Structures are given as structure tokens and as C-alpha cells.
């Protein structure tokens, strides 16, 4: 039952709301419009761009970064950041390969399918553990997310380099053969990584927008104090954002390993830049509080379409692709500034 005051306010009602609703819709559609324009430009610049093969190829390559970026959306919306995702992916890939090779090498080795399942389980467990560790250090340890994940960025990459002795960790040939369909196979004409990307994106959208947890994440990013006073378990919710991101990194890695069947000290380099860029380009404020998973998906595709066009047209060197991403992230942040 709700209490009711029986008197009415004599206060005058407030004047019109600050922003027009149409304008915010336009802002939300911005990345999508940019993507469409970019695709039209790509089709003009190179006829190969608009082929189904090329577009599927772009989407498949987007899947890694896109899946990580979905997890990153939760972290950034809650007001956090994770710089370690590239190194984390590399270490998880390395750990998977080492573990699966060891399982195959042992006497009475189990079948390839069992080994691959074990590898996948290990990857998910690693992602979850790394994520929870980040979350606990940030919440219980009260260390800035930036510092925690900057530290673990170094740790993850160093451990992988140590595991691989500075070279490459390569998956057993037979295993690689058995595992490769996970990356190369298509279902209903759509590659498996794209299906997984779609599922992760839909799952992320539902969690962020349609569950109490998702609302809590947004509330924490909008104003952590207010959320704490409103009986929200702030620390737990924040730990879970890093857990979700860790699991997303693991899923991306599970799709990545069968592509090359190896992990090297350069695996996953600059993925954090791409993932954070995708989130920001997708309209999520780096200050936290609001964001859309679908915006992130569009942002990730946008970035890889840029890369793809550079690849196909040789306007500038492919080596400058990260520079283009860097420019895009700064430009978008510039456009977002002062929105609050």
C-alpha cells in the first residue's frame, strides 16, 4: 500500500523538458547511419566490398572484438574499464593450447571432441576467474580499475610469453583439424562465429535492458552513491560486470584458437583498443551510466568495415589501421563531450 498525501501542491509545474525526444533518437541512430554510409562508400570504392563473401568475412572477423565489446559495454556502463582483454585473450588461448596438447599427449588419450570440450571449459573457467579477480581487486581492494587492469595486462602477456618461451604455442595437428570447423564452418550460410556473436549480443541486450541486474549496472554507472543508498549491492554488481567480460573474452578466444591453431606473444595485441573503441563509437559514455549493447555491436562492425575498406582499396597502409581506430575513438569522444 502506498501512502498518499491528501493535499495538492501549489507549486507551478516545471517548464518544458530540456531535450527534444527526436534528437536523442537521432543520436542513438548515429553509428548505424555512419555504418550505412560507410558501406555505400565501400561499395563504390571497390566492387568486391559488397559481396556476400566479403561481408561474411568482415562479420566473422568482427566476432572476436564484438563479443569482447559486448562484455566491455557492461564494464563501461557501470563506470569501470578493462585494459587487459587483449592480453587475457592471448593467455587464455595459450593455456587452452598447452592443456589440450597435454591431454592428447598423455597415455590413453581421450577423443578429440572430449579434449576440445575440456579446452573450452578451461577457457571459460579462466575467463571467469580472471574477471572475478579484477572485480574483487577493484571493489574490495578499492583500487582504480584502470590500474588493476593495466597491471594484469602486463601479467597476462608476460605469462603467455613465458609459457611459449617467446615463440609460438601451436595446437596438435589432429586437434587443430578437429577444432577448425568451429571457426570455418557455416550453419545456414552464416559462419559459426557470427551466430555466436549474435547470441552474445542478444543475451547482452536482454540482460542490460530487461533485468533488474542490468538496471542496477546502469544505476551504478550513473551515480554509484545513489545506487548504494538505494539498497543496490554495488560491489557484487560490479564484480559481475568483470565476470561477464571475462567470460566474453573466453568465448572470443574459443572462436579464435581454431582460426590459426596457435598463440604467440603478439596474439590479441591492441584488442583492448578495438573493444573500447567499439563501445564508445556505439554511443556508450566512458563516464558510465548509459549505453546500448546494440550500439556496441554496430560500433564493432563499423570499425572492422573501416579496416576492410582500407584492406581492399589501399587508400592508406593497412598498418595504419590502429591509427584510424585511434582517430575514430578520439573523434567520437570529442562529439560526446559535454553531453552531461
Amino acid at each position, binding site marked *: 500500500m502506498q501512502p498518499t498525501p491528501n493535499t495538492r*501542491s501549489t507549486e507551478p509545474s516545471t517548464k518544458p523538458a530540456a531535450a527534444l525526444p527526436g534528437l536523442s533518437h537521432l543520436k542513438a541512430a548515429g553509428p548505424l547511419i555512419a555504418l550505412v554510409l560507410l558501406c555505400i562508400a565501400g561499395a563504390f570504392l571497390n566492387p568486391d566490398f559488397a559481396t556476400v563473401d566479403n561481408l561474411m568475412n568482415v562479420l566473422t572477423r568482427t566476432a572476436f572484438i564484438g563479443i569482447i565489446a559486448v562484455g566491455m559495454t557492461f564494464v563501461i556502463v557501470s563506470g569501470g574499464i578493462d585494459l587487459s582483454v587483449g592480453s587475457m585473450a592471448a593467455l587464455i588461448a595459450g593455456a587452452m593450447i598447452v592443456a589440450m596438447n597435454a591431454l592428447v599427449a598423455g597415455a590413453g588419450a581421450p577423443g578429440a571432441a572430449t579434449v576440445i570440450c575440456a579446452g573450452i571449459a578451461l577457457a571459460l573457467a579462466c575467463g571467469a576467474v580472471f574477471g572475478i579477480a579484477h572485480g574483487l581487486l577493484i571493489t574490495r581492494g578499492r583500487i582504480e580499475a584502470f590500474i588493476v587492469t593495466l597491471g594484469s595486462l602486463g601479467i597476462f602477456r608476460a605469462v603467455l610469453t613465458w609459457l611459449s618461451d617467446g615463440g609460438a604455442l601451436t595446437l596438435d595437428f589432429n586437434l587443430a583439424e578437429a577444432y577448425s570447423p568451429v571457426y570455418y564452418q557455416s550453419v545456414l550460410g552464416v559462419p559459426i562465429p557470427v551466430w555466436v556473436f549474435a547470441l552474445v549480443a542478444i543475451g547482452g541486450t536482454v540482460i542490460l535492458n530487461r533485468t533488474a541486474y542490468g*538496471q542496477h549496472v546502469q544505476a551504478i554507472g550513473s551515480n554509484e552513491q545513489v545506487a548504494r543508498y538505494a539498497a543496490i549491492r554495488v560491489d557484487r554488481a560490479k564484480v559481475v560486470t568483470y565476470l561477464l567480460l571475462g567470460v566474453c573474452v573466453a568465448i572470443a578466444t574459443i572462436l579464435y584458437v581454431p582460426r590459426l591453431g596457435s598463440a604467440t606473444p603478439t596474439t590479441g595485441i591492441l584488442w583492448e583498443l578495438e573493444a573500447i573503441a567499439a563501445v564508445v563509437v556505439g554511443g556508450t559514455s566512458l563516464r558510465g551510466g548509459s549505453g546500448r549493447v546494440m550500439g556496441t555491436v554496430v560500433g564493432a562492425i563499423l570499425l572492422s568495415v573501416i579496416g576492410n575498406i582500407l584492406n581492399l582499396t589501399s587508400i592508406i597502409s593497412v598498418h595504419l589501421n590502429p591509427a584510424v581506430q585511434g582517430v575514430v575513438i578520439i573523434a567520437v569522444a570529442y562529439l560526446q563531450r559535454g553531453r552531461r
Partner: protein
Amino acid sequence: MSLSIRFQHIVKDFGPVRVLHGVDFALEPGRVVGLLGENGAGKSTLMKILAGYERPSGGQLVVDGVERRFANARDAEQLGIALIHQEFNLAEHLTIAQNIFLGHEKTRGGLLDRRAMAREAASCLAQVGLERDPDTRVSELIVAEKQLVEIAKALSRQARVLIMDEPTASLSPGETRKLFELMARLKGQGVTIVYISHKLDEMEAHTDEVVVMRDGKFVARAATADVDRHQMANLMVGRELSSMFQPKTAVAADAPVRLRVEGLQVPGWIGDLGFEVRAGEVLGFAGLVGAGRTEAFEAILGLRPRSRGRIEIDGKPADIRSPRDAMRHGLTYLSEDRKGKGLHLDLGLRDNLTMMTLERDARPWLDLKAGERALRQAIDDFGIRLRDPNCAARSLSGGNQQKLALAKYLRPDPGVIVLDEPTRGVDVGAKRDIYALIHRLAAEGRAVVVISSELIELIGLSHRVAVLHGGRLQAVLEAGQLTEENLIAHATDTQYTKH
């Protein structure tokens, strides 16, 4: 040299909310002017405009016959207008001398001339009567000393108009007396002092004239000698105070205790606090800023550590470690800091309203329609005035934000509700609505705790008032003892030396 200042139809809008509706009056030089008004009357905003911190949306500010448009506080400072903030504007890590010269550093040959600055700082400190080494870090000073540093800083910049916003809010009686002596001295030197407060006794004793503002408008000005406290209070509120409050419903003799706190100890704030609130009762909490009222309840909620203390809700011991535990036990707390702790200003009204009960409403997906229905209901029940139900909480006026916050904290249907400064920054109409709501909450059998700095409000609402002073429970005053004099005497611990 003194400045004369005239406000001509000053208007100020914050986004869609108009907080000043055309204010006209003049300040004559060399006087102590008391600026009176309730929270939200617009006094602070007007003074921020005078000191260059805010720009008016309309109207003119005339200083010595010349219209001025200050781009920032520095412009105002150059004319000799300085504002001493409620929250001080000092860099805590720097020394007193560094703060005094911040932005105006003295240099010799391109390097800082520390010796000259220390010398001049020492003379400014002597002027305000602060016996401290200019090389002391500001973080080592107590509140009253910081305030003197602020004044010294203003004087070092040849301030001729000194605006003091609630300067005595966190001072002890002795410190307050010294401050007023300083104000009298400065007035003797031709400095105009605008003194903002709602402590009527101080207004009566220390000002030459009072200017009253209400709801963003100039209401009245009078020589202090010509008005008494009662008249000032009525001018502030705009009507006879008695009409604001409904008669209190007596608490039944056998009403059960809903909240009992025993031996509460909060490191740095509360030594030993015990009290109880019964069903149907409104228990007020009075005390000066820093007395530990808010801190006591934050500790009860688990928002800050408590070293000792037993909490019982409805007769059962409650182990509360977080606001969530408290909510599960039927206790919610609405913070005094609406913008920083009470509402998500950037989120929508529905999101704010349902924030505490989302998990209850989700099965497992959120039912957005149910949220909309709840919002429509709350808008009706609490009399929230708005144009667009889809707007962000930020675009509501203070009173409507507070009603939304009340609706939010009542949604879990608490048996015990703690309201910290429930009418801070709301207009008179909303205030009366909130008083009626508090009355009704008690009548429904809830236990209500009201923490307030407005004595009139505590007296009008509460069955009993607990008075804290320096972290100690000074007294619990019963209905017959509830007078302003009594409350102030206990809150300042001067009950035996009444003047």
C-alpha cells in the same frame, strides 16, 4: 571605499527550472545585511550571481552605478566582491599562504617570492585574528580556521563586499562570537557584509537590516530593529506558520516500539547513542552540523562502520550491514543529499521510482508496463508536478524531485522510515505536502524519524525530539518542552548559561 550594489529584475533559470523570478533590491555600502529565506528561496543563487559564479538569465547587476556582467568570480573579485562558500574553496593540500595567493602569486624575477607572500599572509591572518603560521597546510585546520583563511584571502584581495553563506552553520558558540566580532570590525572599515542564514537569533543580534526572499522573489526589507523573530519567520514562510502543520495524532499508550537502537558507537562521530521510536510516532533529531545525526543513521544502515550498537526492528534484533539488509528488515533512509545520494538525476522518473524494488518486479524479465503504472500512481499519490513523464529527474523542480525521492524510498513499504532534511531546497507548497505526508505515514502506524535543521519543522512535526551535540545525545525533549530556545540551548550545549 565602499561599493553600492543594485539588483535589477534578476532572473535565473537552471535548465527548465526558474529559480529567480526578477529580483530587485539594493545593498547600501558599509552595512551588515541579513539575507533571509528558506532553503530554495534563491538567496545562494542570487549571491553567486553577485560574486560572478553564475550568470543571470535576465536582468542587470549594477555596481556603483555601472552595469556589470561578470564572466567569472575573478571579475567580481577585481571589483572587490568576494563570496565565502558554505563548502570552502580552499586547496586542502596547499598551505595557508599558498591558498591566500592562489591565482595571484607574487613573483620576483619569474620565481615565486615566498618571503613576501608569507609576510603579507601573516598580516592578513592578524587582521582576521587567526594565530597560525602561514606555512600550515589547510588540511590541518579546523572548520572555523578554514573560514578565517577564506576571509583573509578575500581581504588580501581588497574585498569591499563580503558575502557569507551560512557562515556559522558548523561553528561552536565561541567561534561564532569571534566571527561576529570580526564582522563588526570589518563593517567599521567600510566593508559591506551580506550574511545569509536562517538562524533568526543571529539575524536579530548582528545585522543592520534584513532582506527576505521567498520562492525566488524579493519579499521584504526592514531595519532589524523594526522586526522581531516571529515576523521574520512569517515573512520567510509566507504565511502563518501554524497553518503548515496538522495537529499531531497522539501515539497510543500501548503502541509497539518499531525501532530501538542501543549503545550505538560510530568511530569519530558518535560515542554512545540509544533511542526508540514507536509505531505512529514521529521522532525528530536536532543538532548542529557535525553533531553526528546523519552519520548515526548512515552507521545504522551499514553505510559507515559502527564499532558497537544493537539495533532492534519490531522487537527482533536486526543485523544490518548494508542498506539492502535494512530494507529487508523494513527500514529505509532518505539521504539529505538528494542530488548526490537520493536520486539518479540523469535517469528517468520510472527508473528512479522503481530502483529499490526492481528485483521484486522482475519475473525474471522487467515488466516495463508495471513500472509505468507505478509511476502514474506515484504522480497522483504524491502530487508530483511535471510536463513529460519521460523526462529525466534532473528537469523536475526541487520539491518535485523530493516527492519522487520520497515515493522511491516508500515503495519497499518500510515500517520504519528515516527522512534526513526532507524539505531541504523545496518550496513552501511542496513543504506543506511533505509535512502532510509525514503526518500520514505516522498515522498509518509507521515509525518516522525526521532529521532536520529547521527547528520550526521539528517542533511542528515531532512527538519527541532527540538533540545531539558533538556525538552525544544531549536530551530527548517531550511535547511540552519543544521550544526553539530549548532546542538551541541543548544543540549548542548552553542550556545552563542562557542569555
